[in-house]
């Protein structure tokens, strides 16, 4: 319970407030300057294209001399998405045992060592619930509901943990994936059960066939 409270406090501390951290540095716009003679407020500066050279301008052909090519490095720096077929998965690997250690240190405070979630933190249950989706009390978890393992990797990598989003290394995300999917009985639960880019793309989720495309309008004349 102590660590749980600590997490709540840390989470609250992490909330962005007034710009205390940036004292001294201006982090807001100044009022528009006043013009000489009339004292009117100056209009905003005309937006300036970042293009180094305007090149050929032909608006009818979508050439405006605006913007610039994105380089491979610039794209790679923020291109973090992972697709169900494994496209986007980065080099690396992690084992169930490594994942267990990481999970206890980083994830358990919110999701529970038992992975049952902590409702007062808004942290969802991660495993269990198989076979409940058609019942009166469906339990939607990674194990019972999520159709693709890639989604678990992608989301954990981009947004977890809540107190330090995006801080996990690729190896750590593979390890945590191996542990959570292992505990869910989807991948192996031996200490050395390992996930990497190739094996992640092969993981078959229990509910992979559970989704249908939108058939609406299904009601209404």
């Amino acid at each position, binding site marked *: 319970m102590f660590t749980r409270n600590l997490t709540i406090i840390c989470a609250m501390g992490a909330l962005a407030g007034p710009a205390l951290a940036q004292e001294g540095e201006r982090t807001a716009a100044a009022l528009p300057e006043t013009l000489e003679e009339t004292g009117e407020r100056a209009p905003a500066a005309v937006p300036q294209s970042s293009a180094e050279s305007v090149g050929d301008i032909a608006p009818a052909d979508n050439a*405006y001399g*605006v*913007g610039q090519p994105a380089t491979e490095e610039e794209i790679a720096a923020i291109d973090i998405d992972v697709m169900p*077929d494994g496209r986007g998965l980065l080099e690396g690997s992690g084992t169930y045992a490594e994942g267990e250690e990481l999970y206890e240190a980083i994830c358990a405070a919110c999701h529970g060592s038992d992975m049952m979630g902590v409702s007062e933190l808004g942290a969802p249950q991660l495993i269990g619930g198989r076979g409940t989706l058609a019942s009166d009390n469906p339990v939607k978890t990674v194990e019972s509901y999520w159709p693709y393992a890639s*989604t678990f990797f992608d989301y954990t990598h981009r947004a977890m943990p809540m107190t330090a989003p995006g801080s996990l290394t690729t190896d750590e995300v593979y390890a945590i994936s191996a542990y959570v999917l292992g505990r869910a009985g989807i991948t192996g639960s031996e200490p050395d059960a390992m996930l990497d880019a190739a094996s992640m793309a092969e993981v078959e989720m229990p509910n992979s066939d559970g989704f249908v495309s939108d058939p609406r309008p299904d009601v209404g004349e």
Partner: protein
Amino acid sequence: MSDKERFPATRYGLAERHMAESLVEIERRTLEENKECECRDGMFNGLTRRGVLMGGVAIGSSALAGRRAMAEAPPGAIEYYVQPDPTKEQGRVILDDGGYGSRSQFENEVRWRYPTASLDSSWSMTPLASGQGMLTPSGLHFERHHAGIPAIDPRTHELILHGMVDQPLRFTIDDLKRLPAVSKIHFIECSGNGLTEWAKPTLKTVQGTHGLTSTSEWTGVRLSTLLEMAGVQDTAAWILAEGADAAVMTRSVPIDKAMDDAIVAYAQNGEALRPEQGYPLRLLLPGYEGNTHIKWLRRLDVSDRPFMTREETSKYTDLMPDGTARLFSLEMEAKSVITFPSGAMKLPRAGFYEVTGIAWSGRGNISKVEVSVDGGATWQEAALDGPVLPKCHTRFRLPWVWTGEEAVLQSRAVDETGYVQPTLEQLVEVRGLKSVYHLNAIQSWHVAPDGEVTNVHA
């Protein structure tokens, strides 16, 4: 320095000089009064409106009193001195609020936060009951955040467009503002709007049952313009939009929608986007469920398949009775709700009331709204306020004389495709009670003989 030198006639009109002099005088008296006080922590410590009035100086407005009382005024308002007779003294000076404006201190509508466990991932709802016309004030537009509201410096924010395009591109906000723009008025509705109302009437007000829809005018660049600049490859079918918040929110959008009417928006209601609406840049997908309108937009990745992100698989999917779930229910179907009279109001007595509300459809224009005052037994066609715009709130009105007897008020929207807003019974028959999202059923408000209006399933 005399007041004449301090406030020269070249820069101060008569009334302004009078006010300025009054302020100086009040400050002097206040400082005099508080001379002995050791606990002073500010120039006007201890100054109250009462103090100002007792000072005996007639000033039309009191910036001092206003500042003092700001905490008591509703958000967005300043509590100004209220003149006993505004025809007998000058009003407050122009630009007293700094030049941005504020609402009346007598108006108090605010967004209401649904009590989720986490403050970071939560939503706030628009006070529809007091809404007028079809537009939502920017400060009352509903919010849904999954990881708080980032404060982003527009000078460093960029949008990268890449994937299955001939030339990946990078845009600054300035770049985008140099491109041909469009302004369009559209609603955004969270597909979770009404999620508490499937099984039984739960929340009491229209803000709680329907407050996750709002309408603004949005300005920005057509996404098709950017895609044409980059050159979309033939194999492209989907595009991933990604935000720069701590959730790094992502949704996949069909490329046809992106090429049709999607907007990369930097402005809302005539000014820059509000931070909670995605400043400095958001995606606008007219008629699509709110979650897809990615805020704080930083990246667009063109691909041949959907990315199957967390929000489009584990969330925002509709679980059916047989245990399967529907993916990509993107268009918000026609819906309407009576906003007046509505839940938790009390009609003071029998008499004339104009029944009014809003209707909208993600598939185009609203073509008709009907109102029933007898729980759906009979219907009358309501008048629609123009202009009726596609994928936009439409205000409807119907005169009603309440006799003081029990009544059940309902509205039913029809859109240009001929789709008729269903009853809850019809929806539940097909979708069951576990689908959470996309509830667009007819809403019922019960009016009791004592005038109490309550949320009911009828």
